[in-house]
């Protein structure tokens, strides 16, 4: 009962957060420089034409009227029509979101696997040179932002060792029908392994670019937590019982040390999703990040608003899931 109430409370808070995000982005778009009609107006247009074009996109209405008009539509799931794409914003978002979700989840899984592995190794060999090397390597990985990794991979796997495709989500010459936009999952579930391999190959570089910085953060934080946990009494007891160091780390220390890392991972994952903007652009990956760049360039207000809300919703969902996971791991937190 308490848990249900907590979830309901979080959902209400999430709705309020999204509402706030909507207000902020709505206002910001209209105060920052860049009028979408200025980019569309013809060179021979008169002052009346400019007025008419602004009216066409409701940009001539008072700000409050524009906002409530948009809000009313948004609450019914209508985010308007994209100025640059001439398509329904919700439809565009739903068609592009799966690509970013697949990319982000894959990057998260890689980051967690790599980060946890590095942390475990560093803890296992904490009194040897290995730990020092891992520590330095993690520091280096942490210092390089995701877009630099992306460019490095373009050079490394695109040119020097040309084993991976450079751009896109799938080989454009393949004529494959899909029922959903989650094409990686769909190809796997339908047993089309050649297609799955092609899609996965296209994901390797962008996934690595996104995953590496997060993996480094996970490794750094978890190493510290594990180090602390290894000093706990229950670990000492297990050591006295004669358990191997590997068992001590994996079965005794890790479950107790993972909590803070999990919480941090959830927060960092939202930054990872934000990182898709540049990474998707570099790899011409058709997700909402790449879509967002063009939307901003074109000052496509309806699309930008929809995208920001989509990102906001992702952040909220991820943080909710992280909180639930952390609470599940440490029931004491549910009574906090």
């Amino acid at each position, binding site marked *: 009962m308490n848990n249900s109430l907590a979830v309901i409370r979080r959902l209400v808070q999430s709705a309020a957060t999204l509402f706030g995000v909507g207000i902020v982005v709505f206002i910001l778009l209209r105060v920052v420089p*860049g009028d979408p009609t200025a980019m569309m107006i013809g060179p021979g247009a008169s002052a009346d034409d400019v007025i008419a074009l602004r009216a066409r996109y409701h940009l001539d209405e008072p700000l409050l009227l524009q906002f409530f008009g948009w809000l009313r539509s948004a609450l019914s799931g209508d985010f308007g029509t994209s100025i640059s794409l001439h398509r329904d914003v919700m439809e565009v978002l739903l068609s592009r979101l799966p690509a970013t979700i697949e990319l982000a989840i894959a990057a998260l899984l890689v980051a967690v696997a790599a980060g946890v592995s590095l942390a475990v190794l560093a803890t296992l060999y904490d009194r040897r040179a290995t730990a020092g090397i891992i520590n330095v390597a993690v520091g280096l990985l942490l210092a390089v932002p995701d877009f630099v990794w992306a460019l490095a991979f373009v050079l490394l796997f695109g040119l020097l060792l040309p084993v991976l495709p450079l751009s896109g989500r799938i080989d*454009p010459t393949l*004529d494959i029908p899909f029922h959903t936009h989650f094409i990686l999952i769909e190809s796997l579930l339908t047993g089309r392994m050649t297609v799955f391999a092609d899609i996965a*190959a296209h994901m390797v570089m962008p996934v690595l670019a996104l995953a590496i910085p997060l993996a480094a953060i996970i490794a750094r934080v978890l190493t510290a937590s594990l180090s602390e946990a290894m000093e706990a009494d229950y670990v000492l007891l297990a050591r006295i019982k004669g358990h191997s160091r590997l068992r001590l780390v994996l079965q005794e220390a890790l479950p107790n040390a993972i909590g803070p890392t999990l919480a941090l991972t959830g927060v960092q994952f939202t930054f990872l999703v934000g990182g898709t903007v540049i990474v998707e652009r570099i790899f011409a990956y*058709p997700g909402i990040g790449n879509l967002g760049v063009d939307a901003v360039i074109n000052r496509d207000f309806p699309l930008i608003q929809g995208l920001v809300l989509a990102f906001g919703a992702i952040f909220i969902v991820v943080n909710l899931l992280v909180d639930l996971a952390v609470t599940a791991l440490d029931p004491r937190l549910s009574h906090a």
Partner: protein
Amino acid sequence: MTAFSRRQVIAATGGLAAATILGSGHARAADDTLTIAYNVNLPSFDPTVGPSAVNPTIQAIYRSVFDQFIGQKPDLSFTPGLLTAWGWNDDRTKIWMDVRKGVTWHDGSPFGPEDIVWSLDRAGKKETGNPIEFVWSTIGNYKIDGDRVTADVLRFDPTIFKWMAFLTAYVMPKTYYEKVGAAGFEKKPIGTGPYMVDAYEGNSFLRLKANPHYFNGKPAFETVVFKFVPDATSRVAEIERGSSDLTLEVPFEEFDRLKTRGDLVGVTTPISDIGMIFITNIEPMLDKNVRLAAHHAIDKKAIVEHLLRGYGVPIDTLEAPQYEAFDPSIKVPYDPELARQLLAQSGYSPDKPVKFTIQTTRGLKAKDYEMIQAIVGMWRKVGIQAEIEVYEVAKHFELRMGHKLAPAAFYNWGNAIGDPTTSTGFAMFSKSPHSAWHSDDLDAMIGPLWGEADEAKRIAGWKAVDKYIAEQGYVIPLLQYVQPILYKKGLKVTPEISGAPEPALIKKA
């Protein structure tokens, strides 16, 4: 039975997965497929409305799927398109257009004069949102008589037929569009062009299939893939790796490096796009000495040679050499001493410089910011102290429309039909939302030319306007851009002065 440990199974699965993924790599494209790493994305399939309709680079894609009323050759000259002949009546109160016969839409339905009428009528309606409505609305009251369409000239525009080969001048399918609507058309567009849309993934790729019934003959390649790769580094990698057959707009350093490779060919061509510094009629630019000094102080040849590796054509008017009103006698020579003298007349010197802001984009065009940095350095030597302000292209358009640009603002200007109205005209006439310099003297010279029916007199008039602009320093033209194209040996590419390389014109060598 042999038992495998968990570790062995995991290792084997991982190895198999890696081999499968790395082995799949990039599927070998057929020889009949042309893959282009393109520098812009295609946002919308409607070539007549919205910001993409006036994006010059996207026209290569639109021309692949749709046909224009009037065609254009790579050298900018005009050729029959879906109209085979056209003209005015004797007193220029009507136009007539002969419609091509035997053309079909991509869905097999017949094309006819009603599509021409519907497309023109739609383009001329304000509610459609065509950015060039101000041209299309100059004709109306269409009548169809067999394969001939006539229309009344509501407002005489001497450039109407040139516009029929320019932005938004695409013939759309009346019956199909009315049936599926705007949203349906975006999902499954059809045209009469050399290629049909086969598959599209926004921000990723567009796959086209050859139209076997194209009136100008089936194109050389069965399949064309446009990969939308806006990042220049990635485009370089695409062509260098061989994943794409052709790319354009790569950094000149990379172009020079790659064109020497035995398997690649590099061509450059001056295109109908110029770089210029808008001058706004605010202080200190109201001082003619300052304007002229700013122009004379710029060593355009050095900028092209040293910053752009020779890839550019210095110009002194807004008319590039291929344009109709180009006058080679109009010169504004590099003369820093003259610049100092002009500034001295107004009380300025290197010790007491005139100060103003110059706005520029950064990364929009090749070395745009670096060019302005170089110019600011040249100005400093003569007595101009300019502060650089970087802005986005969206802000430039907004400021320009609101007549709020800084005293100097760098931007570029495309003119794929080469007519003076679409360069000097719209850039310098104060009534245009795209102009920065507003003054009555210039408007008085330009005004009558909009409706001048005598073509020779019209062109001579524009040349006189350009000469006057140069004498007054109302704008600082800098260079005509040169477009680098890299492609695999085995292709025959005809560079297009419009800067939009059309796949239908790319052949196998």
